[in-house]
């Protein structure tokens, strides 16, 4: 075996003056994403959690609705009920986005990746773009599927609704947008922490543990602090009714995006500064 054929072909590979750019980095990230199996199982897990648990919650309310208190009936939100699974689906999306970065460190792929795209911000931005696009697309599909299934289940036994209502359309679309934002938030966490287990722990703590702990704290604390928790703020986007002491839909989502942007900025800076 010799290297014959590499030399003479040298300048035939690429046209003169060729320059690799952002679009090329995006294509590479897309290949990376679609060529590992963890992508498929984590997206499948997300879809199953969003639709499956949405159906379970809808079923639970459908069967119990007649026995709910008048207050519970008054604040019943059929949209957010059918989208309950989004809260759990964020775990699948979060793990996927974290693995996108920590997986490169764990397997050592980060070095060839950065040797190929030495401008680090370009690589990370390309990765963020690809992940946002894919997770929003899958998130929207899951959110709409969960909504339609949930309304079918609720129909006849509890109030249900339709997309013709603009607030409902916003909430259902919001389920997908929220999952995309969770992906970016988690990608930033993965970039900062670089270790899979650590990043997943941090993401789970922020998304699930802290909100749960808060419930055990005095009501006045819950009322003032609860809305500021990133995932509490963000999830306002996928409920139709404003929840007491929580931000309204777009304000809440803007707060979540602000957290995400801060974390991403920090992540980009650390990624550019560090050795690999």
């Amino acid at each position, binding site marked *: *075996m*010799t*290297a*014959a*054929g*590499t*030399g003479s*072909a*040298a300048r035939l*590979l*690429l046209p003169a*003056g*060729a*320059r*690799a750019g952002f679009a*090329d*980095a995006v*294509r*590479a*990230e*897309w*290949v*990376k994403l679609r*060529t*590992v*199996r*963890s992508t498929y199982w984590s997206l499948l897990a997300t879809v199953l959690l969003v639709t499956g648990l949405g159906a379970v919650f809808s079923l639970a309310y459908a069967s119990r609705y007649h026995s709910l208190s008048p207050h519970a009936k008054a604040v019943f939100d059929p949209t957010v009920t059918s989208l309950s699974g989004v809260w759990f689906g964020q775990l699948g999306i979060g793990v996927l986005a974290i693995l996108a970065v920590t*997986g*490169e460190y764990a*397997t*050592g*792929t980060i*070095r*060839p*990746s*950065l*040797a*190929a*795209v*030495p*401008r680090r911000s370009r690589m990370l931005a390309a990765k963020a773009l690809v992940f946002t696009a894919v997770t929003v697309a899958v998130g929207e599909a899951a959110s709409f599927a969960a909504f339609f299934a949930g309304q079918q289940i609720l129909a006849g036994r509890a109030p249900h609704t339709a997309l013709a209502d603009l607030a409902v359309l916003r909430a259902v679309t919001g389920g997908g947008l929220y999952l995309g934002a969770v992906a970016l938030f988690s990608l930033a966490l993965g970039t900062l922490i670089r270790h899979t287990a650590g990043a997943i722990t941090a993401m789970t703590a922020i998304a699930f543990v802290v909100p749960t702990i808060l419930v055990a704290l005095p009501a006045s604390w819950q009322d003032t602090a609860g809305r500021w928790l990133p995932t509490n703020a963000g999830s306002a986007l996928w409920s139709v009714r404003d929840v007491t002491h929580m931000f309204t839909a777009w304000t809440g989502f803007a707060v979540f995006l602000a957290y995400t942007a801060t974390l991403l900025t920090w992540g980009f800076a650390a990624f550019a*500064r560090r*050795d*690999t």
Partner: protein
Amino acid sequence: MIEIRGLVKRFGPVTAVDGLSFDVMPGRVTGFLGPNGAGKTTTMLMMLGLVRPGAGEVRIGGRRYRDLPVPLAEAGVLLEARAFHGGRRARDHLLFLAKSNRIPARRVGEVLALTGIEQAAGKRAKALSLGMAQRLGIAAALLGDPAVLVLDEPLNGLDPEGIAWIRTLMRDLAAQGRTVLFSSHLISEVALAADHLIVIGKGRLIADTTAAGLAASSGQPVLVRSPRASELADRLRHAGAATEPAEERAIRVTGLDAATIAGLAAAAGIAVHELTPQQPSLEEAFMKLTRDHAEFRAGPASPGQAGPGE
């Protein structure tokens, strides 16, 4: 060509690379030699912008690595073995690298053929043997048909056939006018594959020389066989040589070349049956060189000095 100027890298209190400057020239295979922890990997990572130098700079083809318009077309890189996602197929690993540098996808098939691993193209990286994985790493390095190749320990863990293959490949690449730099901590590997040597220890340049030059610098001994060996030894010592008994009726002489020894023997009327200049092994030369180097006597390698990945 690779130009390295005043490179310094510290990891906390440990100086891994300490003011390193050298050039790696095209058209020949350059071996990058040093004991484990000498700073070879750190230096190579700094060449590629994967580790940020504390001071100094590296230019590849006249530019900083991050300024190369198509990095993979300028420099091909093999870093640690198995720098792949285990679940990704060999072909797909090459494909994403190709895409990132606008290299046509057909080139993936070409480098798979060039490295003889077409049949492994569809295998997931974790299913590859070490030899196969190393070939995949080389395939990735050749992807952009680069002018410069930087290979970190390319012979590590390969079977003799694999070692011979990489040696031939490096020679061919250099013969095509490319710059080929490969590292090793085993001088026996480097001796057979390199035309030129860069030797470092504790992050400093110890030698920038040819393989022959390294051997010569340690003083070439001459084996002398004679029926009157001990008498000849006395005369040679008198002339300033150092001698030591080798075999029966033979001595190893250093400090005089073969012609001078023959002349002295003839003048004394002593018959000489054999007069053989001996190539000291590169191994010995290397040991001597690193031993002579003051920094090297500091003691056993301290942990952590290798820097990342070494």
